[in-house]
């Protein structure tokens, strides 16, 4: 209740504040105006197409990020040395301004969906690798030994004693993965694109259609939040055994 109260209070403050601070500003819109912008925005074929395209690209990039990130982490997790080194390297990669070398992506993959998806993946994969590696690195337990005592072999140890322990942090990292993945795709779309939400944001902003612009941004934000909530549900299920 506190949460919803806060949300409502924030929206109300925004609504009232926008009305006061407004002074004919086209940038300061109230939540009501943004909501009103939803209808004309969704009537634009280009916006609808952009949303669909970006949703697809995001979906593919997200899945690849998780699969690839998990695979890389799984390989690197095998020895303590590769784990530590992998952690350091991937933590470094997070803050590399990939935007600066986006031209390389376009060069190798063209200006279409491929480069956007790969750009999303190179952003989204990082937290997955880091999350899993950190979890494995911090895992101290005698459960692997218990599995061996019960007759499980190497794979069984991984399957029964390591994966379940690491799973909650892996799922947690997926949330960050989703948001970075989306970030990567939007940036790519804004820079070079044959379509998508990032481009549409550029179009609306260039055409000074601020209500539609905000409505579009709002849709993306809400979609991001919905994805986040879904992942939180998965996370809760995966960590049900925790306190």
């Amino acid at each position, binding site marked *: 209740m506190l949460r919803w109260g806060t949300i409502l209070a924030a929206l109300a403050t925004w609504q009232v504040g926008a009305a006061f601070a407004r002074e004919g*500003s*086209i940038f300061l819109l109230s939540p009501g105006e943004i909501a009103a912008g939803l209808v004309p925005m969704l009537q634009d074929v280009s916006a609808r197409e952009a949303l669909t395209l970006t949703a697809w690209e995001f979906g593919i990039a997200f899945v690849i990020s998780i699969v690839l990130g998990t695979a890389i982490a799984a390989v690197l997790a095998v020895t303590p040395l590769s784990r530590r080194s992998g952690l350091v390297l991937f933590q470094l990669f997070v803050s590399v301004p990939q935007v600066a070398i986006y031209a390389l992506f376009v*060069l190798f993959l063209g*200006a*279409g969906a491929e480069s956007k998806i790969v750009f999303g993946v190179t952003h989204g994969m990082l937290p997955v690798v880091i999350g899993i590696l950190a979890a494995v690195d911090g895992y101290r337990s005698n459960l692997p030994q218990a599995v061996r005592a019960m007759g499980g072999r190497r794979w069984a140890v991984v399957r029964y004693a390591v994966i379940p322990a690491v799973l909650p942090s892996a799922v947690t990292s997926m949330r960050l993965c989703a948001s970075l993945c989306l970030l990567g795709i939007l940036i790519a779309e804004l820079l*070079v694109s044959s379509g998508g939400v990032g*481009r549409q944001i*550029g*179009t609306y902003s260039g*055409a000074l259609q601020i209500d539609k612009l905000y409505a579009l941004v709002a849709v993306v934000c809400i979609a991001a939040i919905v994805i986040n909530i879904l992942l939180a549900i998965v996370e809760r299920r995966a960590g049900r055994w925790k306190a």
Partner: protein
Amino acid sequence: APTASGDATALTKLKAGICVPNDADLALPPYVAQESGFFTDEGLDVEIVSFQGGADMVKGIVGGSVDVGVCGAIDAVAASAKGIPMKIVAGIGGTNPSALMVPDSSTISDISELDAATTFGIGRFGGVTDFVARLTSDRAGVPSDKFKAAAIGPDGLTAAVEAGGGDIDVFQWVPNSAITFESQGKLRTIATVADVFPEDQYSAVLAQPEYISSHKEVIGSFLAAFFQAVTLMKEDRGFAEKAFVERLNVPQENVGAVYEATVPRWSDAGEVSTAGLETYAEFLPMLGLAKTSPSLSDFYTDEFLPVKTD
């Protein structure tokens, strides 16, 4: 142009880059050609890719991710000046339709009042807005080392306008934005770019010399379809205005004025103002945007001109 062919399987693939998706010169003709099926009629399967600026697009061409580009003519000249082979194959709009504007509260009423304290708001360095700002500053008698500009992209500029100018004294806006700002009483036009720079070649179609020599047919077909779209919009104002509304999201009430400011300047046969191009070449080193001045033949070929449209 090659014979029109309805056979979809025989279509030649071509990727066309455009920059600044809200500029009428650069964004409208390719999409109209696409949506009216002119490209298909010419036997082309065109994919349109938009970039955030001329430089990004030039890199896209060099890297091979697009084949031809629709952008500012200056981008070809500037690239040549840096030793990147790039040639203009056709021109679109001659003069620059953008407006030089100041915040409504500003005391400046004429470009002659600009001085060393003036900060120009521009889209990106090295692009046409940068060039125009430098040239304007030069014409107002400001030494080139005193020139001040903030390159913050279209979003940043819009924000700066909203913030009442802020650190920026002079803006450049394409007609659709300019009209909106003016009607809202935020900005005031002190001159059009064409007043400062009448002998201009604003927008153009370009490609790399290598691609040009190996794909003459394809470029010919592309230009034919492209200028068929230009002609259509020049002749059918109602159709063009609809495109402005749908493609560029120009508000209905402004569409007439935006049309007036842009479409009539368009060439329907790809003519190029070589004088305009030479101005760029001449001024680039002077304005500090390049070290050497390229010669016309480096960045221009007239072998496709005039473009014949059926």
